[in-house]
């Protein structure tokens, strides 16, 4: 069978050839794209380069978590809106997970009505496009709220009206930072105790009530410090002045609509993920736990949930990523998120679409990678050690 082509029958030769062919084609393709793009841009007279980043932005952004005014630069505008995107995703992830947990519980409940209720919730919110839900909250539901003078009053402390949700803001008086510091210290100490308790239980089997001790530390330590320092934290309560509310802080309707839409939509998916995770644990595990005298609570917290987490974390990571990406729809209802700034505000002003597109892609890829990394760390932590 030896002939001129016999070298071709060797697997290694073929695989190397294929791979080099792909590399060459890829490099040529990228070069071709680069070449056409540069000629086209030269022909159209488009500006290039990142010099515009230090120019004055000239448009307002609300809400802004850090100092920002229309006199700030484009780079600062990008950072402010990126922070808005991250805040929105973070808060929505927390709320959606909590709500999803309750939906999973209701779908697993022994009560038939509650099960049906959970089922209806999931089917309705999962099967309607997110953009439509956002529109519903923004253009229909929140627009039905009363005007400023007829605000819905929550115990004279918080006010809800068509212009937003006005809530009190904590103000630190003298010594207030010490209370905040003690809260942080309590948090750190309880995390350390939690880790130590895990190690001890793993090595010796001795349990330690880390959760209740941690809660106690987080609540009691700051409370005690505040009591010693005579409560140096005040609340700034919104007051209706002549034309508008003064003091406190407000959640814009855009933000509220985004939060509602994202939370309710993603909670349906997260609920299904958690339910599937809990159901994936064999029934015998619970029966075994109950038969050695565990209470229902203990069976769930010590036996079922640790095993369910292995099934839950990969799909829930995916869902978190989806949520973070779908915050870009905020541009549709005018919430000042990253995509809104890049595509709606900066691109028309500067015209440097290429650079802006590159920064947008980098920003969102960065957020996605960050979430994926956090979840990977958590996954390492919740892995069941196999002997």
């Amino acid at each position, binding site marked *: 069978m030896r002939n001129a082509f016999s070298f071709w029958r060797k697997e290694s030769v073929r695989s190397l050839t294929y791979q080099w062919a792909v590399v060459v084609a890829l490099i040529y393709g990228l070069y071709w794209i680069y070449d056409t793009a540069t000629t086209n*841009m030269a022909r159209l007279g488009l500006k290039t380069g990142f010099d515009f980043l230090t120019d004055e932005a000239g448009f307002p952004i609300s809400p802004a978590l850090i100092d920002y005014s229309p006199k700030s630069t484009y780079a600062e505008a990008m950072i402010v809106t990126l922070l808005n995107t991250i805040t929105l995703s973070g808060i929505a992830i927390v709320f959606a997970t909590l709500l999803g947990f309750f939906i999973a519980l209701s779908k697993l409940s022994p009560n038939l*009505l509650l099960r049906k209720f959970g089922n209806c919730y999931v089917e309705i919110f999962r099967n309607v496009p997110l953009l439509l839900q956002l529109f519903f909250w923004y253009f229909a539901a929140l627009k039905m709220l009363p005007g400023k003078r007829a605000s819905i009053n929550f115990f004279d402390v918080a006010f809800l009206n068509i212009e937003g949700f006005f809530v009190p803001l904590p103000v630190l008086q003298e010594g207030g930072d010490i209370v905040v510091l003690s809260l942080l210290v309590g948090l750190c100490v309880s995390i350390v105790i939690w880790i130590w308790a895990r190690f001890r239980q793993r090595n010796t089997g001795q349990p330690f009530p880390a959760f209740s001790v941690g809660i106690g530390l987080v609540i009691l330590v700051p409370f005690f410090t505040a009591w010693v320092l005579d409560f140096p934290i005040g609340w700034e309560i919104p007051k209706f002045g002549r034309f508008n509310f003064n003091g406190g802080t407000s959640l814009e309707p855009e933000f509220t609509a985004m939060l509602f839409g994202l939370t309710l939509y993603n909670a349906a998916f997260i609920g299904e993920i958690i339910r599937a995770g809990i159901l994936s644990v064999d029934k015998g595990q619970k029966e075994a736990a109950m038969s050695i005298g565990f209470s229902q609570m203990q069976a769930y917290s010590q036996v079922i949930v640790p095993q369910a987490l292995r099934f839950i974390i990969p799909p829930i990571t995916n869902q978190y990523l989806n949520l973070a990406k779908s915050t870009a729809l905020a541009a549709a209802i005018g919430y000042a998120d990253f995509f809104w700034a890049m595509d709606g505000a900066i691109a028309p002003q500067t015209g440097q679409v290429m650079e802006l597109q590159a920064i947008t892609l980098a920003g969102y890829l960065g957020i996605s990678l960050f979430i994926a990394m956090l979840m990977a760390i958590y996954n390492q932590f919740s892995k069941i050690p196999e002997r």
Partner: protein
Amino acid sequence: MQTTANQFKNPEPAPFKSGSFWGWLKINLFSSWFNTLITICLLYLLYAFSTSFINWAFINAVWFGDTAKACPNSNGACWAFVTDRWRLFVYGLYPKEDYWRVNIVYALAALTIISFLFSFGRLKKIFRISMVTILPIAGYILLVGGYFGLEYVAPENFGGLLLTLVIASISILGSIPLGLMLALGRTSNLAVISKVCTYFIEFWRGVPHIVIIVMFVALLPIFIPDGSKIDVVVRAFIAFAAFNSAYMAEVFRGGLQSIPNGQFEASRALGLSYWKMMGYIILPQAIRNSIPAMVNTCIGIFKETTIVMLIGFSDLLGIIQISLESSDWVGPPHIFSSAYTFAALVYFIFTFGISKYSERLENRSNVDS
């Protein structure tokens, strides 16, 4: 905290007879005082919600009218908006005298759905395959026209439900072969090919869809040689195919990974080449295993089509939004809520239908179809 019991527990009471109606009630609704409380609360909520919904949607609703003045009251739904504009929602800006072309395509689509829902004995396979081939070809000829004396209709005139369905079907049909190729590439033994496919897939999956679509619509002209032109609708289709193929690729990769290694080894041992092994042994099993996940991705694609309205297309949601802001119907927010309820119902019928179909497929996944 004690983890083991050191004495016997009291015996549990004998199980309640579950056969009777009262037994069923007790087990499902009143098994403990807490459950009884939940049942009562939910029953009350159900009563309050359904009465107010029936009042809103039927009793106080306004069914006909041609301006926002027809619906002055916010306690009833404004279906007049839907009955006034339904042609726009179904056909978009398609020329009125050519509605029959769209109707034929809708009828063909309905026939295709029927061919998948019911079994027709020996004809089943032929029926399904012929419908799936006829529908895109006949759909293209009838909708775009330009052949057989049919007048040309520019894709910009598509709108409403028609545009939604066209975008969804093109992205589904385009992303399945592309996704299959990417999945094969990612699971390949050739390091370079697998790396390239992995980065390609992860890039599309890491970026919001709206960013990708804006990128294609705004930037594609810069990346093609001067003189050639790609229509804006086609650019959107390319964008949809690009990111959806990445999602499909992950679905197929799941299917490929579900095939036990023995199948690969056995086909290698029989001396099959890579393509023969994939074509005859692996893919038929892998694709069947990935059908449920594929259907779920299709539901996602269908819902995602709504974002084309953000780049100025008038799909179903887009045209509803435009109509709501037109001078005849601009008005109080309760018209918006009626319109969105209608839109949600239309989307729900499609997505819920597909998901029920996928459940049925899953339930008989062991049966050779």
